[in-house]
């Protein structure tokens, strides 16, 4: 008895090393909260620095851990977590994507600031658990960590809209996670296990079909909520509009990537069951409707951040289609796409945050006002937007090319008409997407308003814009760099 316990504890001690990044992040949260208590006043920029340090440390730990070259998956903490080299790489990628948001984290008051970045890190932590989940419970906890922290993070905005966004997000999210939980409970009922082992999926496949399918559908509702796909996309516009730009950018990148990976893993688990085809079809339909809905709703938006929210819905739909399409390189192309999307999106959100901080709110037509440094902002927006639409010579094009290629490949191998449909809808939305994506460059370059306003740009900000835009162009010409990084995942 004692031996077992000691054995267990020493096992835990051994396992701890595998979750070093998570530990680093948790410790940094505690450190930040403590720092808040210790420090008399909070320095501007401190939160950015802290966040950067936390992320850098985590990244450093991952790189130094040597686990990026793990041969086989390792199950740790009694199978609650699955670790493999690709998971580490993914974590690295998520850290990188989160770091992109740092430049436009708002300067808040002391107390808020510390909690703000703590929540930020907590969300990242939640996504780590989501992507390395080895059981339903880990998935649930991971998702809830992400969700709960997001609810709060959104509320941390000076805008009154933020609380509205937050409560809507919360109620919607809680219902979605309740449904997902219900689905989990039924899955547990079917399989008698909460661990995502092959046996789990086998017994899931052998269970009473209606019961199983219903549970899967319920679970997928939770997943779809996370990536913001139809019919669970509705929270996105309000949430993004109410949230701070940095939060919106962050939510559009990191949790979404994790959610997509989750769906991908879940689907690959289901791959050998009889339900896969119907689930795929459902997801395809969802993806198609998501793309259409997002596109058409985006056209008539007048608030930039809301427009970007709809655009992120479109991207989710598109990525969902790829994730569902059986193809060998689906995941790597999704990640590639996410990188392209993250850079472009952050650039746009960054500029919008500058606009909002100067002007109070972010209407699109505001961009037509003559402001100093318009050309710099304009070119940056243009590059980002062009990348989002997917026109060469930007990374967005390569990403889109990869995605369409994998869809094509999937069509070649399956001849599924839904794949073809999502292929064509993806193309259609790419075209119509121009209507709304070009709105801002159009306002900047072509329209000319009459209320002059000041929108200064410091060298640091210019450098940040360069950081966002240069990779969009450079990687287009040398995609191998990024592909090599991603191909191993």
């Amino acid at each position: 008895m004692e031996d077992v316990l000691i054995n267990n504890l020493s096992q835990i001690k051994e396992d701890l090393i595998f979750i070093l990044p998570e530990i680093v992040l948790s410790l940094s949260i505690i450190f930040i909260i403590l720092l808040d208590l210790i420090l008399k006043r909070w320095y501007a920029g401190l939160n950015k620095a802290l966040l950067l340090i936390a992320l850098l440390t985590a990244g450093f730990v991952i790189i130094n851990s040597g686990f990026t070259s793990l041969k086989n998956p390792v199950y740790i903490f009694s199978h609650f977590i699955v670790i493999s080299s690709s998971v580490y790489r993914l974590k690295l990628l998520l850290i990188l994507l989160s770091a992109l948001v740092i430049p436009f984290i708002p300067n808040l008051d002391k107390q808020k600031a510390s909690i703000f970045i703590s929540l930020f890190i907590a969300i990242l932590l939640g996504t780590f658990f989501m992507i390395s989940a080895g059981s339903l419970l880990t998935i649930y906890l991971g998702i809830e960590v992400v969700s709960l922290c997001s609810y709060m993070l959104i509320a941390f905005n000076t805008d009154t809209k933020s609380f509205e966004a937050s409560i809507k997000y919360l109620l919607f999210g809680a219902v979605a996670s309740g449904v997902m939980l219900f689905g989990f409970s039924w899955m547990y009922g079917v399989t008698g296990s909460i661990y995502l082992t092959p046996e789990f999926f086998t017994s899931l496949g052998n269970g009473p079909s209606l019961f199983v399918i219903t549970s899967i559908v319920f679970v997928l509702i939770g997943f779809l909520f996370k990536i913001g796909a139809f019919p669970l996309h509705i929270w996105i516009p309000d949430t993004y509009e109410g949230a701070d730009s940095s939060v919106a950018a962050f939510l559009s990148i990191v949790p979404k990537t994790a959610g997509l990976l989750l769906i991908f893993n879940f689907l690959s688990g289901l791959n050998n069951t009889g339900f896969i085809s119907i689930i795929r079809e459902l997801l395809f339909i969802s993806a198609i409707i998501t793309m259409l809905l997002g596109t058409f709703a985006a056209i008539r938006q007048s608030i930039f951040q809301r427009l970007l929210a709809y655009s992120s819905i479109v991207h989710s739909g598109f990525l969902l289609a790829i994730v569902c399409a059986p193809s060998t390189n689906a995941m790597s192309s999704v990640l590639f796409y996410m990188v392209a999307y993250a850079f472009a999106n952050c650039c746009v959100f960054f500029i919008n945050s500058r606009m909002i901080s100067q002007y109070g709110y972010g209407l699109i037509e505001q961009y037509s006002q003559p402001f100093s440094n318009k050309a710099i902002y304009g070119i940056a927006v243009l590059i980002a937007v062009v990348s989002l639409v997917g026109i060469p010579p930007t990374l967005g094009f390569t990403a889109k090319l990869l995605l369409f290629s994998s869809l094509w490949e999937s069509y070649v191998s399956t001849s599924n008409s839904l794949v073809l449909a999502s292929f064509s809808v993806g193309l259609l939305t790419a075209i119509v997407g121009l209507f709304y994506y070009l709105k801002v460059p159009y306002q900047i370059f072509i329209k000319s308003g009459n209320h002059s306003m000041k929108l200064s740009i410091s060298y640091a900000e210019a450098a940040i814009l360069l950081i966002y835009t240069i990779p969009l162009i450079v990687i287009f010409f040398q995609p191998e760099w990024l592909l090599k990084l991603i191909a191993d995942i």
Partner: protein
Amino acid sequence: MSSMGLESLIGYSVMFICGISALLMLITKNVIYSAYALVVTLLSIAILFVFLGVEFIAVVQTLIYAGGILVLIIFGVMLTGKSKVAGVFSEVSNLGYGLLFSISIFGILVYIIKQSNMETTGWIMAASSKPRTTLSIESIGEQLMTTYVLPFELAGFLLLVAMAGALVLGGMAIKKNIKDAA
């Protein structure tokens, strides 16, 4: 088996109470009544947990839910229900669609449950034949600290962050209140 009979009689009546009080929440418009009905529902669920052999969860349910959460909720009702009537009574909308869809989802779920006859499937069948072990509090604690240590820590961590966040958020509201008063 008479004790079994009695047990199930009590069990079913608890189930019945649970369902009725849940329905009551749906029927009443008074928020306070709803809260009390929720208490009844949660408590009856706790009793059902006892029937299902997990007394520990029953206790937790009673403490956290019936105690903690409900106090929080009623507190919330009180705080926000200043404007006497309007706050205490909840308006109703979407009744038609809401009920229609809820009833149909209930119907479908019941149909599925009936259809799939869970007690005859795989592991449940196998488990039914085996003798049941009971679970001591001690082993629960041990399991939580060994096998489930990761979720446990994660949940604890979540609690920390959530509480800190909620604190700051609540503080914001209260500060604003003070500012308004000033």
